């Protein structure tokens, strides 16, 4: 296969996953949340159990007027949704789907790259918050900044633990080195990573920056139409990305029966299972207060992650 064709196939595959997986997760969220609340959820769009609801939403968002507030910092305001969305696209590039190089771009420093790119998210929050020239946006953005900066630490520490255990920063390498007993050994790191990841994508119960009951819609208050849709898409891609990272780092990625043939399926199944848990958490738990949020991060997650690092080191040195 010539290089250019190979490149096109990989890029198209990643873009397709980028556009399809979030819609599937979003639709699942509609339906799962509805049934968890004793409702049916969307039933009309697409005739069969509302399968096309998100497509219909997308069409609606395209038709809406694209409003930019008069006082807004126009260029920053318009750039922010792209900045929110783009890092997740890049992250999807390096997430391995299956064994034998079934990954868009195998990076030796994959984990480092992922964590660095995910850190850009806080920039989008601050950009949209400041550029909107709206007090709710600003409050939401500052809350978001505090939250994202805080939770970055346990996220990185938990990821570092598994990287130390595997002895590599490459994501396929980590999955390769993964053994089932790591589920137990790395369990605290997995939980810390998952919770910190939830906070990173600002999902309930960590949706303090959005907090629609007190801040209208946080940093997204002033956004309409397609730009708002980008933010929503970023949220769903965020679910996919955090689920995929949790899968790859802690749940063994493609490992499972017939991993050589069905590895990609195992990865997808695990991603959707973790996504389901993310949705489940949203339905079950109320929003954390700002001080509870920070307390959880600094007094629980960071110490646990540090303890896990020590544990990983000890086990690594002994074995």
């Amino acid at each position, binding site marked *: 296969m010539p290089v250019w064709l190979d490149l096109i196939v990989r890029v198209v595959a990643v873009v397709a996953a980028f556009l399809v997986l979030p819609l599937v997760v979003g639709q699942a969220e509609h339906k799962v949340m509805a049934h968890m609340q*004793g409702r049916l959820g969307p039933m009309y769009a697409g005739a069969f159990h509302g399968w096309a609801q998100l497509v219909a939403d997308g069409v609606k968002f395209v038709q809406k007027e694209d409003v930019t507030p008069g006082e807004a910092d126009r260029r920053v305001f318009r750039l922010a949704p792209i900045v929110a969305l783009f890092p997740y696209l890049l992250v999807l590039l390096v997430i391995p789907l299956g064994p034998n190089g079934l990954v868009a771009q195998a990076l030796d420093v994959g984990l480092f790259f992922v964590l660095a790119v995910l850190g850009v998210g806080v920039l989008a929050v601050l950009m949209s918050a400041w550029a909107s020239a709206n007090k709710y946006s600003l409050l939401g953005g500052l809350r978001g900044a505090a939250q994202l900066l805080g939770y970055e630490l346990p996220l990185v520490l938990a990821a570092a633990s598994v990287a130390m255990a595997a002895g590599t920063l490459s994501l396929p390498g980590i999955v390769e080195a993964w053994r089932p007993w790591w589920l137990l050994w790395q369990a605290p790191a997995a939980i810390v990573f998952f919770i910190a990841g939830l906070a990173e994508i600002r999902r309930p119960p960590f949706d303090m920056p959005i907090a629609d009951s007190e801040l209208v819609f946080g940093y997204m208050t002033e956004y309409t139409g397609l730009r708002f849709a980008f933010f929503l898409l970023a949220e769903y891609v965020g679910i996919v990305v955090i689920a995929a990272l949790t899968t790859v780092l802690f749940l063994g990625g493609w490992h499972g029966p017939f991993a050589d043939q069905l590895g990609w399926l195992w990865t997808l199944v695990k991603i959707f299972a973790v996504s389901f848990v993310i949705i*489940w958490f949203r339905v*079950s*738990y109320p929003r954390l207060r700002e001080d509870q949020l920070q307390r959880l991060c600094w007094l629980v997650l960071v110490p646990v992650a540090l303890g896990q690092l020590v544990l990983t080191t000890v086990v690594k040195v002994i074995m």
Partner: protein
Amino acid sequence: MSDDGERGMPGKGLVQGLAVTLKTMTQRSTTQQYPDVEPELPPRSRGVIALSEENCTVCMLCARECPDWCIYIDSHKEEVVVPGAARSRQRNVLDRFDIDFSLCMYCGICIEVCPFDALHWTPEFEYAETDVLDLLHDKDRLGEWMRTVPPPPAHDVLGEPSKEEATAARKAAGPGAATAAKTARPPVRRPAAPAAAEPAAAEPVEKAAPAEKDEPETGR
């Protein structure tokens, strides 16, 4: 974590929360898909009031008892010449019978007081209008609802025979045989009751109507 100072295992509440939502997800949802799926209404639901025009004698009881005065009745008298009778008789003819459902509070008092079963509840409820004036149903519209009146509940086979049946039986047995009719009825009636209940239920009003109307005539 807990309000009452009682602290169970840490995280117990979190797990319970997850359990509740998961359990709810596995149960059937309570959503009614109304326009697509007809609701299952209880029998004898109070949807709209139907009028059996031929049963109405314009006695005005319903209009007078109506708490919010939403029944409008007009009538005139007609001479009926009965062959062989000494004088011609007078009969009330219903000109107008309107129920204003924008005022009606669905108390059902009109139906309760009607001595001749001219008014009935029906479970139909889809008669919303865009103009409030269209909620004034005239006697033709009220008459159309009669098709939707559910059959009355079957008579309790172990209960006393209905008033109408008892009267008919007494008449059939002739004068002075009232006690005999009472003792003779149940064995005859009971085995046939399930089969007989069906046709009787299908046309409750038509059957009752002649009987009710005949009585005053024969009485006079």
